[in-house]
């Protein structure tokens, strides 16, 4: 029974982290694409009479940077675990620590 409790605890943590990264980052990515289309206007929008809005492009770049940072974090976790290190979020900002 102890094992079941541990597994539930583990699942819960994995679910929370994955919701933030696995659903959150695609959301930001989608927001980036939305902004890009808003910035471009015309044929990028379903409503082709939409005018371009420069601010859309700036927002899009911001969104894509957030996504890239998330991907970089993912790669760091993989690489770090291979080298016997782990990424710690104890200081909010991710830092490398020994496992």
């Amino acid at each position, binding site marked *: 029974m*102890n*094992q*079941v409790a*541990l*597994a539930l605890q*583990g*699942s819960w*943590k*994995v*679910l929370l*982290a*994955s*919701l*933030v*990264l*696995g*659903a959150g*980052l*695609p*959301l930001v*990515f*989608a*927001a*980036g*694409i*939305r902004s*890009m*289309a808003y910035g*471009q206007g015309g*044929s*990028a*929008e*379903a*409503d*082709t009479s939409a005018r371009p809005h420069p601010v859309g492009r700036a927002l899009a770049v911001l969104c894509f940077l957030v*996504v890239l940072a998330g*991907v970089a974090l*993912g*790669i760091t*976790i*993989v*690489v770090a*675990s*291979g*080298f*016997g290190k*782990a*990424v710690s979020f104890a200081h909010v900002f991710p830092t490398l620590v020994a496992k």
Partner: protein
Amino acid sequence: MTSATVILALVVVTALAFDFTNGFHDTGNAMATSIATGALRPKVAVALSGVFNLVGAFLSVEVALTVTNAVINVQDKAGLPLPEFTAGGGYALLLIVLCGLVGGIVWNLLTWLLGIPSSSSHALFGGLIGAAIAALGFSGVHWVGSGTKLDGVVGKVILPAVASPFIAGLVAALGTWLVYRVTAGVAQRFTDNGFRWGQIGSASLVSLAHGTNDAQKTMGVITLALIGSGHWSDTKSIPFWVKLVCALAISAGTYLGGWRVIRTLGKGLVEILPPQGLAAESASAAVILSSSHLGFALSTTHVATGSILGTGLGRKGAQVRWNVALRMVAAWLITLPAAAVVGAVMWWLGHLVGGVAGAVVVFLVLVALASYIYARSRKQPVHSGNVNDEWEAQPASEGARRQKEVAR
């Protein structure tokens, strides 16, 4: 060449063969969605995945001697084989490992023939458990972990397998729903191009994680065999050649591409559109990475399948073929026992014949079974050219059935 060396060589070759099947069985986990949506051409997708698996395999510096330790009792806490197994060049240990690997390979090949994505780790664990039961009885298996760590068959294999499809499915469904909400009103041509890059990025991340996690298992098994037979003594490092051949085996397998499995995952379960591909792969990558980070390692296959199902549930009007999903779940349930039966039968066979001849016979049986399965697969080949064909194996939807009736 002594008899112990012959057996060791057979174990190493069989372990690499398992690593190879592990590669092609799991290509679909990372690349099925990108292939199905046309984000990448099939050949390019498997090549990319192969490269990332190769890189990932070299990143695994830690010794995974504990892989076998989690399910069978042949090692002490540090991962060293117990003395009663290392007598006579480690014959007892090597035979268990060899038969376990054969069980894993046979099950991997059989599920590949049927195009069912099933967990390679479960197959390996199953084979080892079966061989251990045959050799040592039920006490040879580490069933339930004790204390505060998830361990044993229940903690490391069964519970994570139950949890992972639900976690991944939920994340992917939510991600899909959000992506569609946010991009409503954007022209489809525009979104498809954007999501193409998102898919490639997220699928590459899954491949990298796969190489790191899965190649490590074979490295651990080979290193265990080397220690057991007295050819290596360090539990803290892996011989470089082991790392090299394991990395090459898994990436060659990935590059070959398990087209049958890719087809089921990409076309069979759900018809996938680019935004769904992005959501599914992001969910897979996030679940795999965060679970291994939190010490609750999940099987890549269960996660990827859960994500793809979830992305079908998250898009309004997407069709999920539950009969395909059920077939898959049935295969998952019997993976462990089926591989265990093969592992056990192989051990009895090897033990009955005895000595080097026993190990050679087990190996020859593996070669014969593998050749048979390969020959069967040629009757209905699936390859990069037809992997994306319409899914007709099942009378799919009401619409398709009606169309057929109209045609008649």
